[in-house]
Every structure is written in structure tokens, then in C-alpha cells.
């Protein structure tokens, strides 16, 4: 090759290299500017829309095995569907009952046999009465003898005893909820077991957690846990101190879920988790949440040991690193209320 030839060849190679580099960088640079523009638009503040259930829809998400997650009726609803009939975990708000029933009917024409309430709040028990009445219980023997044929006229509503205590009232006093919404069957032991639709079901009581009547429900063959509000993806855990809740119980509940669940490869999938509110999860999601709640608990515990008052603890911002994800300055359950609930859970009783 002549000197001129080598020069031309090198020049061509150089031009090609520049062209290749430019071609590689142009879409990259475009992407960066597009990315910046999109980031600023995604960060624009927007007020959450007012909850209008007249326009709300119930969405059905198949989970695995016999289990479906029903979303949009207040708290998440778990539906187990099989040859024996339908079992629901929670029933959403009252206003959504017709839509919940329509969603259940789209999954199965078999009778609703069981409703299990994870706790007493109205966004999880509001549909108890109309949905239970749309179902039936297989009753016979002593039960029918004692109660009469009406024993089978509705689905069985199962919950921890404290749920019934909170929803009802002693004779002569005004109950906070109508009698038709109350649990028809309660348990007081650490755990209640059922076998329905071909699988074992563990209803496990978590003491003094979100409330004092919490249950988590483990469908053993489908490998799904329905957690109630001990685990949510939408905010900090609501610790209902007035109804016997405590942050230590919430953490114990999260630890119990982690203990029961077995992830598949890469610590993902395997046991699926239906939270009280928010998206479908697996145990890895619960672990992130459990770590977050535990870290905040440990910080506030340390501040209490140092003698800090509630106001001093709030000022120290013990939740700062999780606030953009879980915190809120408006609405029913603000970050301030969460910090206060943790503080009151941990502070020595006066």
C-alpha cells in the first residue's frame, strides 16, 4: 500500500469511527434530554382525586392456584375459588358490595361459603352483610337443631373474637355496625385451621398489631398469604392505638409473614402476598417493608431511651428517608400520626 493509500485508508477509518461514535451518541443524548423533561413532568404535584365509589371498578387479578385478588373496593379482597364454593378474605366497603358480588360471580357460580375478616375496619368489613347474605353455609346436625334452618341462609363470617367485640356492643347499647355485618363465628386461639376447596387454610392471629383483632390467612396449597392491613404498599402501617394496635405487633406480624413465606429463585415469587392495600407482592416486598418499619422503630426506641419527648422525636425526622415513598402530610394517616403511634407504642406507660 502506498503512503497515500495508507493515509486514505486511515482517513476513511477515522471518518467511520467518528460516524459510528456519533450514531451511538445521538440517540443517547436525545434520551438524556427526553429523560430530564419527563422527570420534571413526573414530579409535578397532583392532588389525589376524591374517592367516589360510584365510578369505582373492581379489578380481578389472578394470583396463583385457587386465588384471585380483587382490587378497587376499599381494602383488597382475596377470593379463593374451587369446587366447594367461594371463600373471601374481607369484603371491602359497603358501597362496592354489588360490584364485588358481580366480580365474584364472574369467577364462579358456586355459593359463597366463607368470609374471613382480617380485622374490624369498615374498608374490610363493609360488605359483610350483603355479601354474606348472597352466600350460604352447609349446616346440619346440632347447628340446625339449635339455630334452625336459617343457620345455612348466609355465608359463615369468621374472625378473631375481638373483631366481633369491636363491631358489636353489649345488650342494650348501640353497636357501631349492624348485626348483619358481624362475624358469625370467632376464634380465640392463636390459630384457626380450615380445609376448603382442596387446600388447608391457616387463619393466624397477630396480637396487638394493626388492631387487637388481626388475622393473616395462609392458603397452603395455592401458596398465598392474605395479610390484612399489617402489610400495605401504599403508606406507613396504620397503627390503630384506639383499637388495641401497637407497632411491636405490626413488626411481629411482618416477621411472621416472612417466616411463613418461601421465595422461589432469586428470592422472588414462590409464596405470593396480598396486602391490605396496594399491589400484589411477594416476600421480598414484605422484607423491604419489614426492614423499613423495624429501622424506624429502632430509631424512635433509641430516641426514647435518650429521653426525647414526642415533639423532639418528630423534629428529628426519624422517617425522613422513607417519607417520599410512604409518608403523607395530608389525609387520615399522616407521617406525624405514624411517628406518634410508634412513640406511644414504645414509650413507658405513665
Amino acid at each position, binding site marked *: 500500500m502506498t503512503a497515500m493509500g495508507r493515509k486514505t485508508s486511515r482517513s476513511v477509518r477515522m471518518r467511520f469511527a467518528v460516524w459510528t461514535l456519533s450514531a451511538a451518541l445521538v440517540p443517547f443524548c436525545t434520551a*438524556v434530554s427526553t*429523560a430530564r423533561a419527563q422527570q420534571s413532568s413526573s414530579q409535578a404535584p397532583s392532588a389525589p382525586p376524591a374517592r367516589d365509589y360510584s365510578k369505582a371498578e373492581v379489578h380481578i387479578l389472578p394470583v396463583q392456584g385457587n386465588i384471585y385478588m380483587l382490587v378497587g373496593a376499599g381494602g383488597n379482597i382475596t377470593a379463593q375459588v374451587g369446587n366447594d364454593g367461594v371463600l373471601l378474605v374481607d369484603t371491602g366497603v359497603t358501597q362496592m358490595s354489588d360490584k364485588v358480588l358481580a366480580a365474584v360471580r364472574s369467577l364462579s357460580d358456586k355459593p359463597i361459603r366463607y368470609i374471613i375478616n382480617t380485622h374490624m375496619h369498615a374498608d374490610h368489613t363493609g360488605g359483610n352483610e350483603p355479601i354474606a347474605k348472597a352466600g350460604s353455609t352447609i349446616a346440619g346436625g346440632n347447628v340446625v337443631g339449635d339455630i334452625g334452618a336459617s343457620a345455612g341462609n348466609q355465608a359463615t363470617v369468621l374472625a378473631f373474637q375481638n373483631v366481633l367485640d369491636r363491631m358489636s356492643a353489649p345488650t342494650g347499647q348501640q353497636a357501631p355496625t349492624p348485626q348483619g355485618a358481624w362475624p358469625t363465628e370467632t376464634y380465640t386461639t392463636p390459630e384457626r385451621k380450615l380445609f376448603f376447596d382442596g387446600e388447608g387454610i391457616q387463619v393466624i392471629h397477630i396480637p396487638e398489631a394493626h388492631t387487637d383483632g388481626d388475622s393473616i390467612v395462609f392458603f397452603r396449597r395455592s401458596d398465598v398469604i392474605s395479610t390484612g392491613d399489617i402489610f400495605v404498599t401504599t403508606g406507613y402501617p396504620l397503627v390503630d392505638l384506639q383499637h388495641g394496635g401497637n407497632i411491636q405487633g405490626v413488626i411481629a406480624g411482618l416477621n411472621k409473614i416472612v417466616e411463613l413465606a418461601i421465595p422461589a429463585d432469586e428470592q422472588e415469587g414462590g409464596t405470593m402476598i396480598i396486602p391490605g392495600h396496594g399491589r400484589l407482592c411477594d416476600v421480598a416486598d414484605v422484607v423491604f417493608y419489614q426492614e423499613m418499619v423495624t429501622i424506624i422503630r429502632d430509631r424512635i426506641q433509641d430516641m426514647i431511651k435518650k429521653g426525647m419527648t414526642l415533639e423532639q422525636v418528630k423534629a428529628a425526622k426519624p422517617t425522613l428517608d422513607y417519607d417520599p415513598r410512604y409518608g403523607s402530610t395530608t389525609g387520615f394517616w399522616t407521617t406525624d400520626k405514624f411517628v406518634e403511634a410508634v412513640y406511644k407504642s414504645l414509650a413507658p406507660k405513665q
Partner: protein
Amino acid sequence: MGGIARARLLSIGALFVFQAALMVRPAAAQLDPSGMWAPRFDEDWEERIPGPEIGDYLGLPINAAARLRGDSWDAALVELPENQCRAHGSDYGWRGPSNLSIWKEVDRPTQKLIAYHTHLSAYGAEQTIWMDGRPHPPEYAAHTWAGFSTGEWDGDALVITTTHLKENWIRRNGIPRSDLATARVHVLKHGNYLTVAVIVYDPVYLTEPFVRTTDFAFAPQQQMAPWPCEVVDEVDRPAGVVPSHLIGANPFLDEFPANYGIPPEAARGGAETAYPEYMLKMKDMKRLPRPAKKVTNR
């Protein structure tokens, strides 16, 4: 055969070859990234192989919340049984010391592209990039390490949009990326090299998009090793213990700026530290005395 007839035959043959060439040519000069690829570490060696230093947030457009997550992070968290086999998120996975395999899935009758699949040797992590125009799942669907990805062509580059990611990290020293983040990934093939440009948008922990590129070299001889991962109890701890540093109590945060002579203020990161003009600002900042011997708890 006469000269005219031979010329006509050659013309028809040339036309046939030209048309055949047109038929196999992909639309819009798309460069199929399929194949085996080996990672190139270059200047990223320190961060990607031994791992980043505690408290090194340089160049990260993070907010105060992310900074506190990093300050509170205790490496012992990784040894908890529930975290040992955790895969990287697909936006970070390219960074692992991973061999990469990319293959395509086509609809057999039409030969239309349905998806690209990737496999990274670290954690055996796989990602599917749907190319058939299907929508992303609803917000209440599960999130995964890989997320849900769709792809499209931008010129010859494959552009991947990923949603439904689980929480993961931006930097492997506790700086998080939230589960509300999305990623846009540009896969750029140039000769025997592949550049993967990842842009992370995180409304929770980033103040502006975070951009990072990773390079691979074509490696057709490469064999993909398996990644079996079995959880063991490395440390006997009561269940539920979560290692972390209390606020303001991490004793290791000064090591990185002291070891490298970097102003501690700069080590705290933030969008400003990602831009060249920040170098001028650093000149007036206080530095810690450098230790005679590098101290590290990395």
C-alpha cells in the same frame, strides 16, 4: 445463448439477488443485539468489582432521603437469609460482573419478533423485553427484579422501557432506587461492542434522571455458567433483627473522602456533583487529613 439474452438473464438474476437482499434487510437498519457478550469494566472496575466505598455518593443525583438511606445502611443487611440470593434489579443488573446472553423469540409462521430475552450470569437473572406492542400491566400487578419491559427501535438502537420494578439500588452501598421508578435502556450495538445506556427515573429518591452506561464485547465463544444460590445462616441472629446505623451514628462515612482527598461535602452527592463545573466549586471546599495508610471497611 446470444449476448443480449445473456445480458437479460444477468439483469434478471441481479434483480432477484437485489430483491432477496431487500427482503432479509431489517426495517430501519435495526441492529439485532442477539449473541453472547462479555463485560468490559474499564474505569468502572473499582465500583463494580470490589464494590463502592461506604459513603461514596459522588455523581449521584440523589435527594436527602436517599442520602439518609445510604448513611443508615449496614452491609450486614446483605447477609440476612432473606437477602442473600436477592437479584439485582434489571436496571442495575448490567453492572454486575456478569456475562450476558441475548436471544430473540419469534413467531414461527410469520417470523415476526415477539421478544428479546436476556440472561446475566450474576444471579441467573433474566429479563424479557416484549417487542409485540403489548401494554404494561396495571399498577396493582406484582413487581419483580426484572420488571416489565417493552422494546421499540429508535433508529438502529433498541430502546427498552421498564416498569413494575422491585426496590433495588442505584449504588451498592445502600443508595436505593425505589419500586416506583421506571427505567429506559438504550442498547446500542457498534461493531463488536454493545453499549447499554440506562436512564433511571425515580420520583422517590432522585432529583433528576440518573444516566449510566455499561459496555460489553462480543464473545461468541463464551459459555454461560450457572448461578446456584442457597441460603445459609451466616450469623446467628434473633429473627427480625435488621442491621442499620442509627441517624448520625455511622462511623465509616469519613473514610471515603479522607482516603481520596475529596471534600466530605462533595462525597455526599447530589445532582450538582454529576456535572464538570462542580470541580471548580470543590477547590474551595474543606478536606479531611489523608491517612498515612488507606483505611477501608468496604
